[in-house]
Structure formats: structure tokens, C-alpha cells
């Protein structure tokens, strides 16, 4: 007889609600065959709010199920809430925009948005490499299609195709890294990998494991668009519909960061020495290059894309700082940063959508003010400035050199950014 363990469905309750919502949206569209967006928008909003409520209700739990491959802890809950808030904001800004863009597949549009969020949530909750990969793929596949949802716009198509090809390539790298880690440690479960490595210190010098870590980080670096792997970002952000760009700039990055934090902290904390160096380089290069290149952009969307790349650099400092012994403080700073970033970024794109359809002059008197409010994020307006440097400097004595380098780079790199946001504010 087969022994069947009934899983604890509370762990994936919000995901199940969202999947159910996508079914409902598509079914509604199939039954009514309507070209109006109201039904889809309404269903999507209601589903997201319910999922948000459930997530909030379960946020104090710390449980896992499906053979410990998915876990619900406050960390996961926090990220889930970020994603759901981001989804709500995206739904709010897209209904009009997508309608004007003559998108007939509105049910698919909202369903894919939600499915991408489900993928992100799996990324935040997965505690096992294959589960993480599953979430990553669900997220990425949905985004590939969303980038090309303006089917008659060649630039949208180009963005979709570029994103798909480069994304699949990065996925290949990541999978390759995962298989190496699995091969060297004999498990895909993060905790078990961590235990195996700590029990066999000889593994740390193993070239295969190092290669696995490196490949894995290359894959993640692509997904978060850190600098040597960022080239797709401006093109895709520019070509994709603006609402999708707003969505892509926030949620998926946060999800990739969530998975990255979990992998590093649960599976590879012993390899700190290796990934600290990698992250230092990535952070410095990302901040510097992205901000400099952003200066010379003449498309607002491209500039915003480079801005989002620069943000990744700032966030990566948190990873470098985590090595110093205050990992919890470093990562809570990262998490807070991501939350603030989600709001400010979506806001900036919302203004962009508003301005492209109305223009500055005829528009709302508040628009320029809102614009400068969201742009102030680039200057470091939200309180992350309070949280992050304090955690950085608290670790300074122990991890002197790398932290110094990366944080001073962050300060210098921010200066051109201040110029841009200043000039854009004066424009208004």
C-alpha cells in the first residue's frame, strides 16, 4: 500500500488562491467573450486582496511541508506581501494602459501577472533547488510572454524575444550550477547541502562546488540584472509595455533576491569567503556603471532601467555586509529596501504611464510633484538611508576593506544620480 502524507496546505494557501484566481479570470473571459477589462481587473484585485489577507494572517507561522521543500516563515511571508502589494499596484496602473494598447488578451494579461507572482512566491518559499527552479521558471515564462503582450508592436516583440533567449541562457547557467552543487553534495535540499558542507570542510576547496556556486550566482545575477549580466535590462524595459516594466522592475528582482538570500544563508554559509568577493565586485561595478550609463540615456524608460540596475548594486552591498556577523540586520535592511523600492519604482512608472498618455502641460497639477517625489527615491529619500548605512558601518571594524570599498563606491555612485533626478525635477 502506498503511504500518503497529507501536506499542510497552509504553506501554499496564497499560491493556491492565486492559481484559482487565474482560472476564474480565464474562465470568465471564455464564458463572456467580452472585450472589456472590468471583469478581469475585478477578479484579479479580489483574488490578490484575499491572498494578501491570508498571507498576513499566516505571517507568524513557521512551518514547512511537501517533504520540507516549501517553507512558510516570516521571511517568506514578508516577501510574499511585497509581491502581492506590487501586484496590486501593477493591476491598478495597467487596466487603462493595457486597454488603450489594444490588447485583446486582457484575461491572459492578468492571469500571467498573477502566475508570475505565484512563481515569485514559490521562489520565496522554496527550500530546495528544484522547487526554486520551478518557481523561477514559472515567473520567467510568464514575464517573457508579458513583455510581448503588445502583439502588434515590433519593439514589444523584440523585447519579449530578447528576454526569452537571454533568460533561457541564464536559466541554463543556473541549472548547471545547481547540478554541480547537487553532484558535489548529493542533495538538492538547501539545509542538507549546508549540513554536508559543514561536515566535510574539504568540500570548500572543491573546484566543482566552487564552479557550481559561480554558475548559480551568474544565473541569479542575470535575474537581478547585476552589471556584467545587465545588458538585457534596458532593451527589455524599453520595449515591454510600461505597466509590465513597472512590474518586472520590482517583484521579480525581489523574488530573485529572496531565493538568493535563502540559498546563501541555508546552503552555502560556509562559502562566505568566496561569495563575499564576488558580491563586492558585482556591487561596485553595478552601482558605478549603471549610474554613469544612466546619465547619457535620452529615453526615460531606459534611464529608469539603469536606475533599477543601480538599485541592485545598492542592495548587493547588504549581501557584502551580511558576512560581517550581522547577517540578520544586513538582510532586514535589504528586505526593507526592496519594500520601499517596490513602491517608489511602481510609482515612478505609474507617473510615466500617466505622462505618456496626457503630457506634462495638459496634465494634472500634481503630476510633477508626484514625479519628483518618486524620483527622490534615487537620491535615497526613503529611510533605507537610515537603516542600511548603519548596518554597514556597524560591521566596518571587522570587515574593513571590502565594506569600505563598496560603501564608498555607493556614495560616489550616487552623485550622478542626484544630478539626474535634480535635472528631471527641474524639467518639470
Amino acid at each position, binding site marked *: *500500500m*502506498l*503511504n*500518503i502524507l497529507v501536506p499542510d496546505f497552509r504553506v501554499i494557501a496564497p499560491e493556491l488562491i492565486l492559481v484559482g484566481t487565474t*482560472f476564474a479570470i*480565464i*474562465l470568465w473571459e*471564455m464564458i463572456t467573450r467580452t472585450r472589456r477589462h472590468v471583469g478581469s481587473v475585478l477578479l484579479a484585485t479580489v483574488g490578490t486582496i484575499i491572498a494578501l489577507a491570508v498571507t498576513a494572517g499566516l505571517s507568524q507561522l513557521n512551518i514547512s511541508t511537501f517533504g520540507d521543500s516549501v517553507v512558510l516563515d516570516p521571511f517568506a511571508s514578508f516577501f510574499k506581501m511585497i509581491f502581492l502589494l506590487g501586484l496590486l499596484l501593477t493591476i491598478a496602473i495597467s487596466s487603462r494602459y493595457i486597454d488603450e494598447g489594444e490588447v485583446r488578451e486582457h484575461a491572459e494579461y492578468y492571469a500571467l501577472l498573477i502566475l508570475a507572482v505565484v512563481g515569485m512566491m514559490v521562489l520565496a518559499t522554496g527550500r530546495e533547488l528544484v522547487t526554486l527552479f520551478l518557481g523561477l521558471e514559472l515567473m520567467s515564462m510568464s514575464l517573457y510572454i508579458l513583455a510581448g503582450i503588445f502583439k502588434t508592436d515590433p519593439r514589444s516583440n523584440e523585447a519579449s524575444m530578447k528576454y526569452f533567449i537571454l533568460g533561457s541562457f541564464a536559466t541554463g547557467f543556473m541549472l548547471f550550477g545547481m547540478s554541480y552543487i547537487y553532484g558535489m553534495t548529493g542533495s538538492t535540499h538547501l539545509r542538507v547541502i549546508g549540513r554536508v558542507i559543514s561536515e566535510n570542510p574539504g568540500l570548500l576547496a572543491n573546484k566543482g562546488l566552487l564552479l557550481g556556486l559561480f554558475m548559480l550566482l551568474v544565473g541569479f545575477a542575470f535575474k537581478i540584472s547585476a552589471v556584467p549580466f545587465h545588458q538585457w535590462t534596458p532593451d527589455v524595459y524599453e520595449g515591454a509595455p510600461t505597466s509590465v516594466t513597472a512590474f518586472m522592475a520590482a517583484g521579480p528582482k525581489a523574488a530573485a533576491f529572496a531565493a538568493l538570500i535563502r540559498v546563501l544563508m541555508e546552503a552555502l554559509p560556509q562559502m562566505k569567503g568566496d561569495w563575499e568577493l564576488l558580491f563586492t565586485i558585482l556591487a561596485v561595478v553595478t552601482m558605478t556603471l549603471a549610474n554613469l550609463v544612466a546619465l547619457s540615456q535620452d529615453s526615460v524608460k531606459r534611464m529608469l532601467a539603469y536606475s533599477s540596475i543601480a538599485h541592485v548594486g545598492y542592495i548587493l552591498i547588504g549581501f557584502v555586509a551580511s558576512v560581517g556577523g550581522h547577517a540578520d540586520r544586513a538582510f532586514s535592511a535589504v528586505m526593507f529596501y526592496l519594500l520601499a523600492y517596490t513602491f517608489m519604482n511602481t510609482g515612478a512608472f505609474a507617473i510615466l504611464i500617466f505622462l505618456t498618455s496626457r503630457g506634462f502641460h495638459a496634465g494634472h497639477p500634481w503630476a510633477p510633484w508626484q514625479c519628483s517625489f518618486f524620483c527622490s527615491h534615487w537620491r535615497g529619500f526613503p529611510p533605507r538611508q537610515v537603516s542600511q548605512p548603519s548596518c554597514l558601518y556597524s560591521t566596518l571594524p571587522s570587515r574593513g576593506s571590502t565594506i569600505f570599498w563598496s560603501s564608498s563606491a555607493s556614495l560616489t555612485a550616487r552623485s550622478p544620480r542626484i544630478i539626474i533626478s535634480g535635472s528631471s525635477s527641474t524639467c518639470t
Partner: protein
Amino acid sequence: MQESAILGYLPILIFFALAVAIGGGMVVVSTFLGRKNPNPEKISTYECGMVPFKDARQRFDVRFYLVAMLFILFDIEVVFLYPWAVLFTRFDPVIFGFVEMLLFIFVLLFGYIYVLRKGALDWS
């Protein structure tokens, strides 16, 4: 005679070699037997007696790709059904296995109806 699972496939490997030998042999033998007397007309592409125009490798209907993609999707679902069906009587209770698969088939059916409504299966 089967010591291990792999050894059980040895006959299949030998059988495969024999099949390739027979098939390949026929192709090789027929190139030696029979006359060879080609001329430009004989070896030109057949097009019902017309002079062939353009290359045959042009774009063709996208629906063939669509069918191929749908096939991959549904065929994978079918492969998932096999182990379930083999173990069907061994679920405890049986109704559990049945309901689990009903959920799976429901998702499959949902996708099928979606494809149907989108007109991906219309050929006329």
C-alpha cells in the same frame, strides 16, 4: 536470466543492431544492384512534369508548430497518467488516488478548453 534491470535491455540493444543492419543493408545493397544511368532530367525534382519553380523549403503554416507544441503539453500529461494508472489499485484508500488525479485532469481539461476556445484547433 535477468540479473539486473540493465541486463534486461541487452537483447533490445542486439535487436536494435540487427534492425539497423537490415535497414542499412537494404539501402546499401540497392545502391550496388541495379543500373545507374542518371541524366539531368531524371534527377531533377519531381513536380508533376512541370519545371520545378522556387525552393521547396518555404515557410509553412504556423498551425503545424502549434500542433507540435500542444502535443508536447498533452503528451507529458499522458506520461504522468501511466504510473498513476499502474498503481491505481494500490492507493489506500482508492478514492484518494482517484480524486488526486481528477484534480490533475481538471487542470488538463481546463487547458484543453482554453485551447479550444482560442481556436488553436481549427483547421478549416
